[in-house]
Structure formats: structure tokens, C-alpha cells
């Protein structure tokens, strides 16, 4: 999508909804927005029908700010709470069958690469822990083994939120859930370890405590996926309904869980590390050059 595509024909703009005009004049497209700018520009997503205080919605909002080229991004999702918000974003959203995200994204990314040789198109999978670690597990793993160049973001609320509180593979051992009446019998799945084993270029574990860090991590993951290989972000996005977290305490919970067992952790493959170091150097050089000109 270029500015040409977004801008309405002369004389037509005033008849478009204000909402659309704002997206063109002061929107998130064609320039990287910062978390510090939140509240001062028209965001890609503004409304959602998810539960009040749901940490997942905060995280999704930040993803829409962080994506490095929103106008050339397609998001793949699936059944689960997250898609209720993601579909409200002004970015194409593929709503597949439950658990098919990483296989759909494979076909989509390869197809876009065939059609757009000179314009990188970013494909980002964003789905729940059940969608990625349980029903979509084989598709996730194989997209990693095949080194498909897209980012997978797990919205890990450690439960099947959308169907009302059943345990997923990402639920902690011992938790009593709707389909684990005597407590879940096995450990939380180590998806980060599996990602590393499968050769994922960059992984990150993150909680919803630090918006700038979330934005930087998302950006990093998408840029590395574009150039190097698959990337994976596992984000703790609590379900305040099923875990009975009072709405005002959602961020406190995120801090506690982060301190206890969900600390920020990154992993780079050698190739991803050297790509990232190089591109950081290049960005610094460009910033310096820009300053000089000023």
C-alpha cells in the first residue's frame, strides 16, 4: 500500500468519514510511530469488544504501534479472544480455521514474495496459546523447521479464554481449570526451548509491563524475520476473567508474574545477532549523518 492508494481523489476526501480522513492525515502509516507518541496520533486500532482491563488488548495495541511497516503488513490470526481486537485494526487480517495460522502464513508469505519482488511484505501471526501450542502445534513447529520468514506472536494468557476457561498446554501444572477438574497434570510447555531447537532466529519472552520494550521487541522480531528467518515472541497477556484478577490489579499481576517466572529474555541465533548488530550500526550512522545535516 502506498500513499497513492490511501489518498482519496481530489474533492472526494471531504465525503469520507472523519475516521478515515484522520487515518490519512495523522495516522500510523508510512512512518514509524513511537510509544511516547501514543495519544497524539490516529492509531490503527482504537476500539475492541474484549473484556475491560484485558492485558491482551494493551499488548495488541502496542503491536499495532510497533510494526515497522504497517502499510505492508498482513496479520494472520485464528479463533480465540485476540482476534476480536485484531480484526478492528486497519491492517488486513486473515481469519483462518482454529490452529491453521502458521500454515496459512507460510502460503501467504511465499505468495506475497512471488508477487512483490521489490517490496517486502511482512506477515505476522498473532494468536493465543491454545491456537499455537495445542491445535496449531505441528504447523508452528514445521514453519520453524522450514525457516519460513515471518513472526509468530503468542498471546499467552495460559488458558482457553474464548471458550470459557479450559486449560491449555501453556497452563501451569496443578492449576484447576474447566477441563482439568483435579488440576492440570503436566508442566507448561517450553515453546521457547522448542523454538530454539527448531532453529528460530530470534525469540523473546515478555510480559505486559514495559510498553517501550514491547514495541522494540516486536520491531526487532519483524525485521529479523524479514531478513533472516522465523522469529517468536511469547507474551504473558493475562486473562483477568478466568484467573479472577481484579481489573485495577492486571498490571500488578503482570509485574509479579514477570518477576516470578516470566522475566524478559531474548535469544538470537548467530546469524540474527550479526544481522541485528550490523543494522543497529547502520541506523546509528544514519542518525549521525542526519544530525550533521541539521
Amino acid at each position: 500500500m502506498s500513499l497513492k492508494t490511501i489518498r482519496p481523489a481530489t474533492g472526494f476526501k471531504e465525503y469520507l468519514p472523519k475516521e478515515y480522513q484522520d487515518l490519512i492525515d495523522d495516522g500510523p502509516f508510512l512512518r514509524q510511530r513511537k510509544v511516547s507518541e501514543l495519544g497524539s496520533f490516529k492509531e490503527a486500532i482504537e476500539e475492541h469488544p474484549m473484556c475491560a482491563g484485558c492485558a491482551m488488548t494493551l499488548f495488541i495495541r502496542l503491536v499495532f504501534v510497533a510494526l515497522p511497516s504497517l502499510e505492508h503488513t498482513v496479520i494472520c490470526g485464528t479463533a480465540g479472544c485476540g482476534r476480536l481486537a485484531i480484526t478492528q485494526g486497519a491492517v488486513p487480517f486473515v481469519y483462518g480455521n482454529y490452529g491453521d495460522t502458521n500454515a496459512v502464513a507460510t502460503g501467504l508469505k511465499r505468495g506475497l514474495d512471488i508477487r512483490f519482488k521489490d517490496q517486502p511484505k511482512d506477515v505476522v501471526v498473532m494468536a493465543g496459546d491454545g491456537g499455537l501450542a495445542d491445535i496449531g502445534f505441528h504447523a508452528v513447529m514445521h514453519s520453524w523447521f522450514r525457516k519460513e520468514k515471518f513472526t509468530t506472536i503468542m498471546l499467552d494468557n495460559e488458558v482457553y479464554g474464548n471458550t470459557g476457561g479450559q486449560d491449555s498446554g501453556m497452563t501451569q501444572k496443578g492449576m484447576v481449570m474447566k477441563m482439568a477438574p483435579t488440576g492440570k497434570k503436566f508442566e507448561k510447555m517450553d515453546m521457547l526451548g522448542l523454538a530454539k531447537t527448531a532453529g528460530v532466529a530470534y525469540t523473546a519472552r515478555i510480559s505486559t509491563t514495559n510498553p517501550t520494550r514491547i514495541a522494540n521487541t516486536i520491531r526487532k522480531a519483524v525485521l529479523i524475520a524479514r531478513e533472516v528467518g522465523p522469529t517468536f515472541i511469547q507474551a504473558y497477556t493475562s486473562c483477568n476473567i478466568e484467573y479472577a484478577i481484579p481489573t485495577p490489579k492486571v498490571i500488578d499481576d503482570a509485574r509479579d508474574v514477570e518477576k516470578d517466572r516470566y522475566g524478559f529474555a531474548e535469544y538470537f541465533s548467530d546469524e540474527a545477532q550479526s544481522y541485528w548488530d550490523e543494522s543497529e550500526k547502520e541506523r546509528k550512522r544514519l542518525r549521525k549523518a542526519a544530525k550533521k545535516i541539521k
Partner: protein
Amino acid sequence: MSQDVKEKMESKAKPEDAKTGAAAQRVVDPDYLILEAPRKKEFITGSEAAKESVRRANVDIAIAYPITPQSETMQQVGYLYAEGYIKDYYRGEEEIGVMSAVAGASRAGVRVLTATAGPGLMRGLEQIVSWPGGRLPSMLLVMCRVVNAPLAIQPDNIEISYLLNSGGIVLHGENQQDFYDYPLIGFMVGEKPEVTLPVAVAVDGFFVTHARGWVSMPAEDIKLPPRDCYHEAVPMMDNENPPIRISRDSPIQKSNFISYQMHAAWQQEIWAAQERAKKWLNRWLGGLIEVVNPGAKTMIVASGAAVSQGREAVRQATEKGLDVGLIKIKSIRPFPTEELTEALEHAEKIVIPEFNYVGWLAKEVKAAIDRTDRIIAGPRVFGGMTMPTELILETISASE
């Protein structure tokens, strides 16, 4: 790696020479490629016929997963990729993954192909039946075999019955010739703006895929025009459209009357698109049905390999002085209701031989025509059995 293995691998890599193979092909009008181009006959297997079809189909990406009796075809398609005829090709993780990736590729706007059989079709079914609702043009080749269990790989086309209510177009080929022609026609019909639907081309496994038959084909230096994805019923998922806060895939997320109405209208539209496909199928298939001996008192109605057996039965019956005709149904979806009604108007007896236990074609015909007491819903063979023409002739005479 030994030197000769290395050389072999390198020789399979895409050719550098821009004047051979794919690069030498020129795009021609579909009417020319399908109907007009001069053809030569070759004696080849069904798998080879499918390969030659794909060679001329200007496919962007093919996604493969092995299953007998399909594997050979997608291997051959892999060679086409190695020769530069196809831009991308890979073996998927299994059929759910493959059919999902087909959906992704179609949304990206490229021409996509896959193939499967029996248990593979069953495994991929959740994805396959969601393609029409996604309005995703694509090509699925189905080489019918027994559906588990007990496990068997023998020919049996019961799996087609699972595709009947999907909303996708379903063609059933009789022989190697059809397996060359139908995919090319299917791609063009499915991608028409007023159709925008996936197409499945089914043939009966082994009888068609592994046996040889005469196939007439135009030269290999011509191909179909590429997919024109911006002239279809829905926008592409390539982010080249003006931004809107609604996704093409899921306008129907709420539980209220507006969303019920939307879903209902969406479903009606898929089946209306099937009706609109008839015009193009008629043009390129030469009609949804073929009639042999129109006006005969006894009519055999069949699809797929049963048609060939029906043809032979007609020949033998005619030799004996019996008045027997045949209707070949080429398109199962859309179903040729009007055509059948007309072609069977005069018939006193209708015999429907099938290669499956449930008799799905007989049920379809019964639902389409009047005076259904004329129908003899058989003979049927299944589980790998062949259908001797005597069986059809006996069925005809037993009911005298």
C-alpha cells in the same frame, strides 16, 4: 556429498538458459489454449497428463504431500518446478498444513495447486470446505481411493461425496484426456470475477492415474495467462487496498440479526457463483454433460471411470440390438440439473453405475429429475473392485 550426486542435484536446479522450458513459453488466450490450438496425441498415464496440464497452467506455487495414488503427480509437478515452470514448490507437513497453506497462497493472489487422495482429503477437509467461503480460487486434484478404515489404497470414489456440499466447483474426469483438460479449464473458471471459487478435479485413482491412454495436447510452449487477482470478487490480502477497520475474512463475529443476515447472504452468494460458473464450464467443457445415443429408451448415467465402462456397455448393447444410451456428467458441482432433466425426458429406464458403496451420484440424479421410479441405482463396485461391462448389461436386462 559425492561428485555425481552433486552434479545430479545441480542439474535439477533451475535452468540458467532463458530460452528453454518455461522461459520459452508464451501466454495465450485461454480459448486458444483450451479449444483452438492444434494438438498432438500421446500415449501417457493420467499422472503424466496432469503434469502436462500443470506445465501449461502458469502455476505460481504448488504444495505437495505424498499419498498413493497421487504422489507421482506431485513429484512430476516438482520436476516442473525444478525446470522453472513453477515459481515455488514445497512438501508440506501434512494435509491440514497443506490445505491451509493453499488458503494463504490464494489470499496472496497467486495461482496455487495441490493434490491429494482418500485419507488425505479427509484430513484436509476442514480447510478445504472453508476455501469457498473465503472465496479462494485454487486447484485441488483428487485421485480417488478408499477412505479409511480398513486401510486400503484401492480405487473407490466415495470421497467425492464429502466435497458435494462444500460450495466449491467439483469436476469428475473420465480418463487421462480429461485429467489433462479439466485442470486448465478449472483454473480459468474459478478465477473468473463472477465465480471466484476453488475448483477440485477428481479422477478415479489407478484406473486413470496409473494406466495409459491417448491424450491430445497442444505444444508445450504455450501457457494460460497468469492469475489476475485484482479482478475477483474479494480484495487480496496483500495490503494494497485503502485501510479499513474491517477484515475481509470475518465481518460476521457478532451474535445479532445483521450478522445472521450477512452469513446467510454470503452462503447464498457462493451457490449463486456456482450457477454463474456454468456459462464458462459450458464454453470450455463443451457442456456439463455429454450424451451418447440421445433418445435411447435406456440411459446409463455416470461420471468418472464408470463412464468408460458405460461407453463399452453401450457398444456391446448396440451390437445386441438393444436401445441403450449414455450420459457422462462432467461437472458434479455445479450439478447439471436442467441438462439431465432434458436429456432424460424420454428415458424409460436410467441405470447409474458407480465406483462407491453409497451411490452418491444416484442420489444426486434422483434429487434432480422427476419420475424417479425410472432409476435403477446401480450397479456399484467398491473397495478396489473393477466394474465389468457385463455387470452393467446384466443390470439393464435384469430389470426388463
